[in-house]
């Protein structure tokens, strides 16, 4: 029942917000609802396995099944944490029709939570698309100058990908023994080697576009840049995780043979993506684009480690799913504060943040360290495990991917240097102390970064059951 309520709270709040006119009130409703969602997510995380099962479309045997294992819980936690953080950090931003904006954001949250909880293939597909539609409207209405074309590209890309997944679902469904969409039946579906390969390719396309894996990534930097920052945060902190989640929930368990057979190919693509994105990130002057490319590189590493198909890599990814979300969220919030107050995203025009506003400077440095995975930050744990797994997979791949650590240090520290140090630039002199909620959020996030970096054991415990399921011999 708690699973159903975590889905319905943002949904109901979103509907209420459609009828709210005052901005202040809308803010309170959004923050309150996402706060309750966070509380429920914590509740689910610390309680044992929970399930919800109800009849849906009986004639084709599709059921409304929600389940939460370690993998779901860690993403539930991330989704639960991200939304109140985003709402609070951007609560003072100038947004037209704020109530509608927040309503669409909460619809997105409903879709995301549904994706992470669905235990039935058709339901999963349903939520997968539902998470996309509100984002389409959010970006197209509140985005930057080129928003309509860019968002449309993003939409068509992901929509096409998910349609391929739909064929995959139909293909597996027609081969299940009991004609049902349950994960268990899907796992036991009697597919021939050829069919498994086709189904693998169909599912993979959807996930690869969402993550995105090189060369299907072209929609992403533009979409991140043109979206309103609150939406960019959702996209890069939570939404890209849908692809990785899909791989772990569906691709690995359903098609183990095809998965193993293609790991080389995907790992190499991912590593190319990592290096490619890192090099582009170095050349960026726009802070938002820099963070976007850095995020692509990090996701690339996660997909490489996942497709290396060993336990240690999967463990690293499970931890990193959460850590990457928190880190990138912190960076986006800081970038947003700077842009809101100085009116620029260009690193050339920045400088002297540390002098002008020491608190924000320290916070920036903290998240930057997490971005390059220094020890004591949360990302270190995950990245260490992932490199370890790549080394087990093929040493030379680990070396190639390892270059990205150096590159990450280059572009991240370069950003910190240009932004925080040096003389106070003309634009930066307009910088005031960030508002209280934003500052509060940043500090909380930084505490999460450090705690989960120093003592990651709870995260390991949380995801133990997923690992066991994935790698049972």
């Amino acid at each position, binding site marked *: 029942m708690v699973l159903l309520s975590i889905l319905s709270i943002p949904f109901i709040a979103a509907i209420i917000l459609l009828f709210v006119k005052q901005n202040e009130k809308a803010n309170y409703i959004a923050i309150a609802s996402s706060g309750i969602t966070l509380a429920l997510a914590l509740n689910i995380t610390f309680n044992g396995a929970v399930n919800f099962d109800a009849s849906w479309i009986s004639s084709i045997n599709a059921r409304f099944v929600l389940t939460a294992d370690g993998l779901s819980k860690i993403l539930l936690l991330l989704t639960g944490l991200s939304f109140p953080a985003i709402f609070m950090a951007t609560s003072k931003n100038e947004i037209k029709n704020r109530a509608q904006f927040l309503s669409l954001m909460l619809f997105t949250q409903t879709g995301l939570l549904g994706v992470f909880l669905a235990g039935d293939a058709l339901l999963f597909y*349903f939520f997968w*698309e539902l998470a996309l539609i509100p984002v389409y409207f959010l970006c197209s*209405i509140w985005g930057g100058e080129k928003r309509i074309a860019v968002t449309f590209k993003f939409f068509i890309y992901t929509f*096409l990908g998910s*349609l391929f997944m739909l*064929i995959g679902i139909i293909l597996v*469904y027609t081969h299940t023994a009991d004609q049902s969409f349950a994960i268990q039946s899907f796992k036991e579906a009697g597919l021939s080697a050829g069919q498994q390969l086709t189904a693998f390719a169909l599912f993979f396309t959807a996930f690869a576009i969402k993550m995105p894996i090189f060369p299907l990534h072209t929609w992403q930097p533009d979409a991140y840049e043109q979206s309103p920052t609150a939406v960019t945060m959702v996209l890069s902190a939570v939404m890209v995780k849908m692809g990785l989640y899909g791989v772990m929930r569906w691709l690995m368990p359903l098609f183990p043979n095809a998965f193993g057979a293609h790991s080389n190919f995907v790992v190499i693509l991912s590593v190319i993506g990592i290096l490619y994105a890192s090099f582009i990130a170095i050349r960026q002057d726009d802070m938002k684009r820099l963070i976007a490319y850095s995020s692509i590189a990090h996701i690339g590493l996660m997909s490489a480690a996942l497709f290396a198909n060993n336990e240690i890599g999967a463990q690293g990814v499970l931890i990193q799913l959460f850590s990457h979300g928190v880190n990138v969220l912190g960076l986006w919030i800081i970038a947003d504060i700077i842009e809101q107050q100085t009116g620029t995203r260009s690193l050339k025009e920045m400088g002297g943040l540390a002098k002008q506003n020491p608190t924000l400077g320290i916070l920036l440095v903290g998240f930057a360290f997490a971005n390059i995975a220094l020890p004591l930050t949360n990302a270190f744990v995950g990245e260490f495990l992932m490199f370890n797994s790549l080394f087990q997979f093929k040493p030379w791949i680990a070396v190639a991917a390892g270059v990205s650590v150096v590159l990450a240090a280059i572009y991240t520290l370069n950003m910190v240097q240009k932004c925080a140090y040096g003389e106070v630039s003309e634009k930066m002199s307009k910088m005031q102390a960030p508002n209280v909620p934003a500052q509060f959020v940043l500090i909380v996030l930084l505490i999460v970064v450090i705690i989960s970096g120093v003592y990651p054991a709870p995260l390991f415990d949380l995801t133990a059951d997923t690992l066991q399921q994935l790698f049972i011999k």
Partner: protein
Amino acid sequence: MNAIIASALLGVLMMFASWIFDNEKTHTRIALVGLLALIVANVLQLNGIYTIPVDYKALLSFTQFGLYVNTILFILTFLYVWLNGDEIAKIGNHAADFYALFFFILCGASILTSFNNLLMLFIGVEILSIPLYILTGADKKNLNSNEAALKYFLMGAFSTGIFLLGITFIYGATGTFHMIAPSVNPATGMVREQLMQSAGLILIFVSFNFKVSAAPFHFWTPDVYDGAPTVFTSFMATIVKATAIIAFVVLFHSQYKALGYAWELLLTFVLISTLFVGNITAVFQRSVKRMLAYSSIAQVGFMLFALYGSSSFADEGILLYIMAYSVASIGLFGVLIKMKEYSFEAFNGLAKKEPLLAAMTTVFTLSLAGIPLTGGFFAKYYMLNAAVQSGVGLWLVALAILFAAVSVYYYFKLIQAMYFMEGEPVMHEVEQRYKYKLLVFAILILALGILPNVFLSYLYF
């Protein structure tokens, strides 16, 4: 049987209504009551209660499926008249005449859902078609409407000829108008009679393609849909087309085996060209009305998937499809009627001026594009599942999906115009009551998209 008799009688009754009552509002009310009576008569038969016992000599067969389709068609017509009554009254002199034609069309429709004999099929198709020629030309002073009617009539007459020729061939081969699937002996292949029967079936196939506007027999569609008064386009593109598709599916589910291997080849050719022509041409349209005409061709492409083989997915799917497609299209045409101009630009800024109307238009559009949470998603889903189950190559399904993605392009142009473009929509005043009526359609679409089960369970009780 109830429905056939009742609709014919009601048609005649409606003709006299314009004689007795002068007020067009009254005509609409009488039509609505008549439609209700028709629904009741049909539901009675669905539950095994007959009003008049008729010996129809096995020319007709009333199945649960056919009767349920009747119910759907009648309810759709009811909703359509309920929404569009005022608009219908604006065309011509006597709304009652049009309602009479509707009833005759429904009479044809109820024959088409229950034929058991090729002659009945032919009569059904003709009863359905002839009123349509009149409706197309209803706007007598409009040249486009006249042209469309003439074009439709000529092309329709031509396809009727082909239809009859097909029936003649089959009669010549089997000696009966009843439908008998030939049993081909694999050792000898098809003998002469069987070849003749196949040729007849192919001719009927062609003629049906014309009726449902599948490519390459679609050329009349855009002009007719564009030229006809918009209210009647709405009727033709939805309820009439749905009836034709159902008859098409029912006929060939029992007969396709007669065509052997050629069947799949033929169907695949028609299906691909329909999807191609419909979707690609729709992309380039400037007028929303013409875009909808081409998109209705594209939608037929998806419906044709039900023809590959008979399965529960195909049967349930085609029902869901006609429901989702018709409700969404009637709704969308309902919005279009209120526009003074049919270009995409006319919709600019609609979301700001009429938020509810824009939201509902979005629901209809998303449904036509097949996005989850709307009926269109399950409609497409069932069709694809039916196709995969019947053993069609996955490449064809993938191709259909690519075209579905193309369709997103032109459907979303409408959403983009309404929500993301600045401007003043070029439209008539819309009454609050009208919006609430449209809301019923939008809610139906969402209900179909969340719990399609509810609408299908009646097939089996």
